[in-house]
């Protein structure tokens, strides 16, 4: 329903398809996809999985960004798990908005046709949006690697992808088409006046509430007053609670409007990452300071998930298999938690109390992560093992860090995901490394100690036996890499026919 906003009942306001929308009377947990398909009857965007893993539902989220072209950033997100209230004050671009210079097909659409890149066509609008995002983000044809990365969150079951990847490059062979972001900028600026949102769905729509406070103080106050409220950042997990589990979420509090939570800066050799900073913003900065994170960052999740999800959410959720935690644990990351006006700091290692249980007190929230950056004496590495290269949850994820002084290990951190009910450090292994040298004896001791640190489970991702064996092998692999010898340890280095 799109209706004028009545008095004190604020609607969800956003810009789409050439008009500002103001939506009232829908559930506070309604997703963007559900609104598009059932309320707006814009059915070009598809539901393939309702969990952000297939990309059939991709839309572009438009936000003001002084550094972006025409002052508007466009990023693909999964509309199936993105809540409508989260786009209040923003704009979305859907497949219905794409067209070429003369009103026909956009160059990426025409390239898809010319490359025979659609078969059943159901995933196609999502691929088109991903390719549109890629097209908008650059001036020249993307490499194959760049294309595959941009498509990491899009599943196609028909084509085998070859023609889709070809279309990404072929679109640049046609006359350049620039998507005009000026109307979006004007609309976004007009909506920027309203800082906070307090959306209350009527009784007929479930009676839920969605709050988006605009200041840190207001956020803290809101959570103090309503400690049972659920904090939502990117909804890449909470979205599934709604679509898959129908969990009641009567009161959601969104972090995105609080400027302080978007902090991403270096403070005295430590990187401070606000709780609302998306993966897409956080990881490139992390990788700049810790290049050994690059492979993990590439495989962490597909762009639509990274554009919505936050590192803070990854940490605060306490999922046993989140890939953010092992490296953060190994880097001795700390958390700044706030409750009311009080801020305390806690080591990440002390944050997890058990399976999906954390040290957060009622009314307390994660304000920011503090990541000490390794110095020149530190050696750091991390490894991810999963069934599929892209967009897969790790069977296990490992991070290793040692500091050397005169050839002696003066600090050691070994952290694993997938090996226990929470991401955990391996204290016995760390103790075995401490004071040791880069030699076979230390490795042997560390490997034996590691076996005592964990009792992993068997599940759909791997058996306990596999996890135990491979954990030790990753340790060995890292050790050999430290020693600078041995065979190439990554499949990336292998070429066919060589």
């Amino acid at each position, binding site marked *: 329903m799109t209706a004028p906003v009545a008095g004190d009942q604020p609607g969800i306001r956003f810009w789409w398809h050439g008009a500002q929308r103001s939506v009232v009377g829908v559930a506070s947990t309604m997703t963007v996809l559900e609104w598009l398909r*059932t309320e707006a009857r814009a*059915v070009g965007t*598809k*539901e*393939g*999985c*309702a969990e952000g*893993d*297939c990309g*059939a539902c991709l839309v572009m989220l438009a936000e003001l960004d002084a550094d972006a072209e025409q002052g508007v950033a466009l990023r693909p997100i999964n509309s199936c798990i993105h809540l409508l209230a989260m786009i209040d004050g923003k704009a979305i671009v*859907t*497949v219905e908005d794409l067209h070429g210079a003369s009103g026909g097909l956009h160059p990426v659409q025409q390239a*898809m*046709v*010319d490359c*025979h890149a*659609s*078969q*059943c*066509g*159901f*995933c*196609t*609008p999502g691929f*088109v949006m991903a390719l549109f995002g890629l097209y908008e983000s650059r001036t020249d044809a993307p490499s194959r690697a760049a*294309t595959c990365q941009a498509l*990491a969150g899009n*599943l196609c*079951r*028909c*084509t*085998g*992808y*070859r023609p889709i*990847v070809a279309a990404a490059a072929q679109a640049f062979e046609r006359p350049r088409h620039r998507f005009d972001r000026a109307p979006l900028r004007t609309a976004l600026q007009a909506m920027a006046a309203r800082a906070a949102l307090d959306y209350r769905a009527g009784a007929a729509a479930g009676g839920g509430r969605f709050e988006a406070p605009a200041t840190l103080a207001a956020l803290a106050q809101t959570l103090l007053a309503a400690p049972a409220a659920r904090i939502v950042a990117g909804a890449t997990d909470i979205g599934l609670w709604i679509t*898959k589990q129908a969990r009641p979420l009567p009161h959601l509090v969104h972090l995105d409007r609080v400027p302080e939570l978007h902090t991403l800066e270096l403070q005295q050799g430590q990187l401070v990452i606000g709780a609302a900073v998306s993966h897409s913003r956080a990881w490139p900065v992390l990788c700049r300071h810790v290049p050994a994170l690059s492979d993990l960052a590439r495989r962490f999740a597909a762009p639509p998930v990274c554009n919505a999800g936050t590192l803070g959410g990854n940490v605060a959720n306490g999922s046993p298999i989140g890939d953010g935690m092992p490296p953060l644990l190994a880097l001795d990351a700390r958390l700044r938690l706030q409750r009311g006006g009080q801020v305390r700091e806690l080591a990440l290692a002390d944050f997890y109390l058990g399976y999906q249980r954390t040290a957060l007190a009622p009314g307390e929230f994660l304000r920011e992560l503090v990541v000490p950056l390794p110095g020149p004496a530190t050696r750091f590495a991390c490894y991810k*093992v999963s*069934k*599929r*290269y*892209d967009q897969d*949850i790790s069977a296990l994820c490992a991070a290793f860090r040692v500091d050397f002084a005169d050839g002696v290990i003066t600090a050691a951190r070994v952290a694993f995901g997938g090996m226990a009910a929470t991401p955990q450090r391996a204290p016995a292994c760390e103790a075995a490394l401490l004071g040791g040298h880069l030699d076979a004896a230390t490795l042997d001791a560390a490997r034996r100690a590691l076996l005592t640190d964990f009792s992993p489970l068997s599940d*759909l991702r*791997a*058996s306990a036996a*596999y996890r135990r064996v*491979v954990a030790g*092998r990753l340790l*060995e*692999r890292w050790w050999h890499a430290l020693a600078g010898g*041995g*065979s*190439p*340890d990554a*499949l990336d280095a*292998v*070429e*066919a*026919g*060589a």
Partner: protein
Amino acid sequence: MTAAPGARADHPAGSALAPPGTSLVHDSAHLHVSGQASYVDDLPEPAGTLHAALGLSELAHARLVRLDLDAVRRAPGVVAVLAGSDLVHGKFGPVLADEDILVRDTVSFHGQPLFAVAASTRAAARAAVRLARVELEPLAAVIGLEAAREQGLHVLPPVQLARGDIDDVLATAPHRLAGTLRQGGQEHFYLEGQITLAEPRDDNCWHLWCSTQHPTEMQHLVAHALGVAVHRVGVECRRMGGAFGGKESQSAQWAIIAALLARASGRPVKLRLDRDEDMRATGKRHDFHSRWEAGFDDSGLILGLRVELASRCGHSADLSGPVNDRALCHVDNAYFLDTVQIRSLRLRTHTVSNTAFRGFGGPQGMLVIETVIEDIARMLGLDPLDVRRRNFYAAEAGHGRDLTPYGMQVEDCIIGDLCARLEAQSDYRRRRAAIDVFNAGNAMIRRGIALTPLKFGISFNATLYNQAGALVHVYTDGSVLVSHGGTEMGQGLYTKIRQIAAHEFGIAPDRVRLSATDTTRVPNTSATAASSGTDLNGKAVQAACRSILARLAGVMARSHGGDAGDVRFHGGRVTLAGDPARSEDFADLVMRAYRQRVQLWDSGFYATPKIHFDPVTRTGRPFYYFAYGAACSEVAVDLATGATRLLQVDILHDAGCSLNPAIDIGQIEGGFVQGMGWLTSEELWWREDGRLMTHAPSTYKIPTATDVPARFNVALYDAPNREDSIHRSKAVGEPPLMLAFSVFFAIRAALASALPARQQVCLDAPASPEAVLRALGVLEAP
């Protein structure tokens, strides 16, 4: 991609001629890319449409003690609720009616539908489902295939195919080898989930929009469940968002439930499964455990082969009979088996009923003999390609080594030549030698290469299904509308049919449109399955066109003076005896024919010739012809973690005279990648209690773009079908899936380099990182 030999340039627009052999773009491509292609969930909903949701069982095997749906009925927005006990005709099934539409007494798998709700919104229906009070009394559940084999639980009786005295041959063969092979199943993962919209119409009639490969079967089963004659039910499908066999029989339950709810409520009802429900409640590719024993000579020639194929069929028969029959008929793949005994067990478990999936059992049978060949080669220290070649069917029929285990003579064997060409194109021998050198110098990363062939029988095994009908209308402006019994699931059937019809009339493809497939237009259709869509429907359409053309030629001959046999339809014009003076626009001739009261529409029918099969002896000629292909894949394996990566693939595939090279190459590439997923990253994992834990893309991993190598070379083996198929083309839907065997055996080859010489490699499919480490002997068996 290498262009197909003889393929003409791409064909972007529909206004120029696009005869068979040109790469006309998919007829819906412009709609796909702009989001304007309508799938069932996209259609405007009729006024008053209700939305359905299902209550699924949370146990695998249980007695239904009590189903209290009072709170469900009272929930906001709920209009109709159905349970198994409400149904008069409560059973259904494609072959045997052995499944409950909704559980009546006994739950037989985890995720089985117990009840259905129709409410004003989908959210209301889904919320109401949660209010049910279900009391189940657990019964002992058999989940795994081995447990079913041990307990002798069969969904259908075992079947055997044999020739010669296998015991004698095995006893006297110079070499003997035995082995086992475990193959996992596969989720179809069509991007569009199961969906039906059912609308009540007047006089007790029903119209269904259903995402299905088999509208006629939906019509029959819905009519039966409603207790009405078949002519009261119409089923329509314009396109599916993927199917791959998963919407052949598996669309029925949802179509029936939607129709029953529509009757109960008197309103249109849409039932769309959520992805998790879809993966829990619909069947998959059968997983197989196979045992084999082979006798062979020093050259690797197989003298005798005994195979036992055991498949997990799930809780009901569904299509397990025909699927396992095809597995049985494809154990030979491209190899002559003189003395052979193949036994097929169809095991019953308390899991979802497994079903059709691209290849339909063929891949499972073929993977066994490819394993046998590889093991023989390893034992003898030979290149597996040489052992393959040693065992191929004869290139020429009639001189021995040409008879399949089911007694069909292989008359069109081109596999030797095809493999020789691919061997050269892919530089197989040189790369294999280079890999040996690489592997000798690398401890943790190993490479492997394999070149594997395929031969796949084309036709439904059951002869009766090899028939098709079509209805062709020529309107008075010269535009053409074609209806036929096939369904479009992305494979390009409508595009090929458009080319066929446009070619017959000599007009541009944009003058031909395809109507949605609809049982009220063409009746008694077979499933669009068995790769047969174009073969069957293309011929039926051609026949209909030719009936109309004969009449038009008569009109032309009468009006210009001449012989109807000299009339040619080409370039949008009709010409008599090549005489430009006796030539006119197709549309003008059509209008004149109309004025002369000449019939401008007709039906066509086709029944595949030559085929027959005795279901008792399991002998005959079930297949009209065979399609062939081969692939050469190179992989790298990380021995530390078991991770694998495909580095290069070269494919040469036989599509006969390709009707549309771009579409056929699309089928080849897509089939290959889908097969690669089955054999590498796609793993179905059930908890001990029978709950499927890989029930969504977050946990079930089909390939992504990154998994496909930059070096992905696909070429068509350009030779006409020796049988009189439509324009001498060959079916191309299923066969390419088996090209992915090359990936699996390349991984095995890499592992072999890390194992002691001649030690058998026991790699399970899928070759997940875990399976790889298991094959290397560093993990205990699961």
